[in-house]
C-alpha cells in the first residue's frame, strides 16, 4: 500500500533534478534569512512558496508530453488574448502596464508566456517536422516576436529578453541555419540605433549606466556600484553568514529580490559562488541530458529550451549583479524572494521530468 503510494508519488519525478533543485532552494532560504534582515516571516513565506512550486512541479510532471502538446495552441491563443487585454485595460504600476485584473486577483500574463511561447514553437516545429523550410522558421519567428513586442511595450524588458531567448533556443535547436543566424546578428547590430530610439528613457539610462556606473552614483548606477562593492568585499571566503555589511547596513537595494546574489556573494565569497555555479551546472546539465534523450522533436525542443532559459535567468542575474550586464529586472532562479518566478521555473522542471519519465512509457 505504502509502496504503491510511494510509487504513485515518485513515478514521474527525476530524482537527480529534484535533488539539485532542492539544494538550491535550501541555499535560497539561508540567503533570504540573511537578506531580509533575519525576517523569519518573509523566509517562511518563501518556504511556503517553494512547497507550492514543488507541488506544481509534481503535478505537471504527471501530465504526459502529448497532452501538453495538444494544449500548446489554445494556451498560446489565450496568452496572446491576455497580453492584448493588458495593453488595452491593464493596471499601471510604477509606470509599467503589466497587470490584468481578473475578478478578485490580478495576473501578469507575460509570466505565463515564458512557458507558453517555447511550447507553441516546439509544437509548431513538431507539426512540420518532416518538411522544415525557411518559411517555417519565418512563421516561428513571427510567433515569437509578436508577444515579445507586446511585452517589451508594457514595458518589461527583462521578461521580453527572457522570452526572446526561450524562443530563440527553440529555433536554434530546431536547426535554424548558421547563415540565417549570422545574417540576423549582422542585421541586429545594424539596427541597434533604431532599437535605441524606441527604448524608454529608463532603459537607455540602464544601458548607459552599465557602460560607466560611476556617472550616476546615487541614481541609476547606485545598484551596480553597491552590488559590485558587496561582491568584491566578500573576497574568497566571504564575510560569513549574516555578516555582510553591505546588506545589513542597508546600502544594497532590492537585496532580497533581484540583488539577492550580492548578499549571497558578500557573505559566502568566491567559494560560495563556485558552489552556486556548480549547482546550476548540475541542473542545466541534467536538463540537457533529458533533452538529448527525449523521443520526439517536440519534447527535445521543449526540454532544451526550458533548460537554456533557466540558464539565461541565472547568467543574466549574476551578470547584472556583478556589473557585466545591464540591470534588467530578472530574479536569481530558485533563490530570489517571490513566488511567481519560483512557480514558473518549477513548472518548467515539471515538464522536464514529464519528458524524462514518460519517454520510457512510450517506448514500452
Amino acid at each position, binding site marked *: 500500500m505504502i509502496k504503491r503510494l510511494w510509487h504513485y508519488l515518485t513515478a514521474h519525478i527525476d530524482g537527480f533534478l529534484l535533488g539539485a533543485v532542492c539544494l538550491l532552494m535550501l541555499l535560497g532560504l539561508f540567503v533570504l534569512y540573511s537578506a531580509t534582515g533575519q525576517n523569519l516571516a518573509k523566509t517562511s513565506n518563501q518556504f511556503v512558496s517553494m512547497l507550492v512550486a514543488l507541488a506544481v512541479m509534481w503535478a505537471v510532471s504527471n501530465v504526459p508530453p502529448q497532452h501538453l502538446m495538444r494544449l500548446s495552441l489554445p494556451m498560446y491563443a489565450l496568452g496572446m488574448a491576455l497580453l492584448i487585454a493588458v495593453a488595452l485595460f491593464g493596471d499601471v504600476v510604477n509606470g509599467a502596464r503589466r497587470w490584468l485584473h481578473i475578478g478578485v486577483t490580478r495576473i501578469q500574463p507575460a509570466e505565463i508566456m515564458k512557458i507558453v511561447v517555447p511550447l507553441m514553437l516546439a509544437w509548431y516545429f513538431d507539426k512540420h517536422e518532416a518538411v522544415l523550410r525557411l518559411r517555417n522558421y519565418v512563421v516561428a519567428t513571427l510567433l515569437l516576436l509578436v508577444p515579445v513586442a507586446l511585452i517589451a511595450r508594457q514595458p518589461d524588458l527583462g521578461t521580453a529578453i527572457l522570452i526572446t531567448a526561450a524562443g530563440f533556443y527553440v529555433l536554434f535547436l530546431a536547426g535554424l541555419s548558421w547563415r540565417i543566424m549570422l545574417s540576423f546578428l549582422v542585421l541586429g547590430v545594424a539596427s541597434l540605433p533604431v532599437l535605441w530610439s524606441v527604448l524608454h528613457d529608463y532603459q537607455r539610462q540602464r544601458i548607459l549606466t552599465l557602460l560607466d556606473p560611476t556617472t550616476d552614483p546615487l541614481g541609476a548606477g547606485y545598484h551596480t556600484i553597491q552590488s559590485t562593492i558587496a561582491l568584491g568585499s566578500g*573576497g574568497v571566503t566571504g564575510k560569513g553568514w549574516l555578516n555582510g555589511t553591505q546588506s545589513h547596513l542597508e546600502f544594497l537595494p532590492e537585496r532580497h529580490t533581484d540583488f539577492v546574489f550580492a548578499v549571497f556573494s558578500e557573505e559566502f565569497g568566491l567559494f560560495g559562488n563556485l558552489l552556486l555555479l556548480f549547482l546550476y551546472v548540475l541542473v542545466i546539465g541534467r536538463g540537457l541530458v533529458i533533452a538529448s534523450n527525449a523521443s520526439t522533436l517536440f519534447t527535445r525542443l521543449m526540454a532544451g529550451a526550458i533548460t537554456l532559459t533557466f540558464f539565461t535567468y541565472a547568467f543574466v542575474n549574476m551578470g547584472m549583479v556583478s556589473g*557585466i550586464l545591464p540591470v534588467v529586472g530578472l530574479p536569481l532562479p530558485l533563490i530570489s524572494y517571490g513566488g511567481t518566478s519560483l512557480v514558473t521555473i518549477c513548472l518548467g522542471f515539471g515538464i522536464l521530468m514529464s519528458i524524462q519519465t514518460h519517454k520510457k512509457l512510450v517506448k514500452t
Partner: protein
Amino acid sequence: MNHSVELKDHQRELYYFKLRLVIAAGLVLLLFFLLFLRFFYLQVLQHEHYSTLAENNRISIVPIVPNRGLILDRNGAVLAHNYSAYTLEITPSKVENLEALINQLANLVEITPKDRKRFHKLLEESKNIESLPIRTRLNDVEVARFAVNHYRFPGVEIKARLFRHYPLGEMTAHVIGYISRINDDDLEWLEEKGELANYRGSDYIGKTGLEQRYETQLHGKTGFEQVEIDANGRAVRTLSRTPPVSGSNLLLALDARLQEFAEKAFGNYRGALVAIEPSSGGVLAFVSKPGFDPNLFVDGIDPQNWDALNNSPDKPLTDRALRGQYPPGSTFKPFLALAGLELNKRSPQYSINDPGYFTLPGSSHRYRDWKAGGHGVVDLHKSLVVSCDSYYYSLAYDLGIDNIHSFVSQFGMGQKTGIDIEGEALGLLPSQEWKLKRFKEKWFAGDTVSVGVGQGYNLVTPLQLANATAILANNGIAFRPHLLRYVQDSKTSQLQILPSEVLYRLNFKPANLALVKNALIDVTGPGGTAARAGANSPYPIAGKTGTAQVIALKQNEKYVENRVDERQRDHALFIAYAPADNPQIALAVLVENGGHGAATAAPLARQVLDFYLLGKRPQSALPAPNKNQEADD
C-alpha cells in the same frame, strides 16, 4: 527505400540536434566561466579595493550646527544671545503610545499641562521633523534622574542645545523679532533658496524682525563630521571634521538704552516711537507698545499664551511702528507748507484772516479750525506755530491733490521706506488716480481740504513719519532708514561696514527750508502748540504737534474728550528733531488715544530727546490718560 531515407533523415536530424545541444552546453560552460572570471577579478584581484569601499559605506556624515550670531546694539549691549541648556526630547516615530510615555515621564521630571499642549502643537506643525522637546531647560537634578531611568524610555533623549534668549524681552520684541522651530513652510523656502543642506541639523530659523531679515548672516555655515558607524548605526569614532562657521554678529544702529527709555516712557499708553539719526538714516529707537515676550516663541509658544497675545484688544503682536497706519493729522502741515512755497502757491508774506473755518467757493459747508473764532491774521510762519487749520484747508485746495501727492511722496510717505525689517505697511498718500482705482469715484475738492490737515484718506506709519522728519531735518537728503550698521565676522571679529545709503537728494530753495524749519522751532517756543513740552530746553527743538481723529464728528458736534470712550479718543502725534541747528536725532511719536499731540506725544518726545542728547532721566512720568488737558492743535 523511403523508409530507410526517413530513418536516415531522422538519425541525421538527431545528430544535428545533439550537436547543437553540445554547442549550447559549451556556451553555457563558457559563459559561466566568464562569470567566474568576473568573480575572480572582483573577489580576488580587486578585493582590497572593494573592501575599502565597503568600509567607506560604513562612514556616516553628521552635521554640526553652527552657533547663531549675536545681535548687539550700537554700544555693544546684547539684544539676542545663546545659552546652553538641556532639553528632554521625544522621537514620536519610535514611540507607540505617546500619552502613556509622557505620563510616565511626568513621574520623573515635571511636565506641566502647558508643556503638553505645546508639545502637541509642535507635533501637528512639524510632521517631517525627528525629535521634539517635551521639556526645556531641565535642571541638573532632573537630568540626573532621567539619565538613571533612560533605559526605560526608548525614543526619549536628553539633548544639550543652544537656546536663543532676548534679554530685553518685550522692549525689543518687534525690532529683533524671534526665532522658532523650522516648520514645513520654512523648509519649502529653504529648498527654493537651495539652503536645505546648510540647515541639516538646524532646528531653528528667524521668523520675524531682524532675526528673519538677516537669517542668512546669523545662521552661519553648518559643519560636518565623518563618523564611523557600526552595524547598528551607532557612532564609533570620528574620522574627520569640518568645523562649522558661526553666524555673524549684527551690530545695530539701535541704542538699547534709548529704546528701553522710550518704551518705558509710554507708561500704560499704546503707541509707537521711531527715532532716526538724520545724518545716516540709522534707526536709534524703534518702539511699538505694547510688546510681547519673544522668549515665549523660541521653543514653540503654548496655546494659552498664544491666545492671550493673539486675542488681546491691545494687539501686542502688531508692530505699530512698522505696520500701524494712522492719519498724520497736523504733523502733515510742515510738508504741505514747503509744498506751498516750492510750488509758488504761497509766499512767506501771504496771509489769511482766519474766521475759524474755511468754506469752498460756492458751498456753505464749514471746515472748522480747531480753535473756535480763528487765529486772526495768519501767515505761513504763524500757521505752523499755532497749527492753523484754515490756512491749510485753503492751501491744500490751492495746491490740488495731485500736487500734494507728488510733492509729499518725496518724503517717503505712501511707500515703503526700505527699512531692513520685512512686512512694512505702505501707508496711503491719496491721488485722483488712486481714488478712481480704489472707489471707482472721482476726486472731490472737499477730499483735498481734509488732506490739508492730515485727515481724510491720508495714512502714514510712524516709521514713515520719522523718516520724513529726518529728511526734512537733513535738508532734503534722504537716507534709507536702517537698523543694521555692521556685520561682524564671528571668528575674526572683523567688521563689515554697511555704508549708509543715500536714496536721493531733494533740492529745495534754502530760504523756503529755513522758513519752515524756523517755524518748527517756534512751535516748541512760547506761543507755539508745544510750548509746554519745549519749555526750558537747553537746545533748540524743531517739532510739530498732531492730532488724528479716530471718530468722525458731525457738522456741528463738538469733540469733548471726556465723553468719548477711551479707545475712540484721538491719537496724539508729535514729530521733532533736535538740536534744531545740528540735528542728531529725528523722531516721530504716536500715542494711541492719547488725545492732543501737545498733551501726551510732545512731552514724551521731549523726555526721549533729553535722554538721548543730555543723558537726563525725567523726574515725573507722563500725565495719566484720564486727566483733562489743555486744548490746542
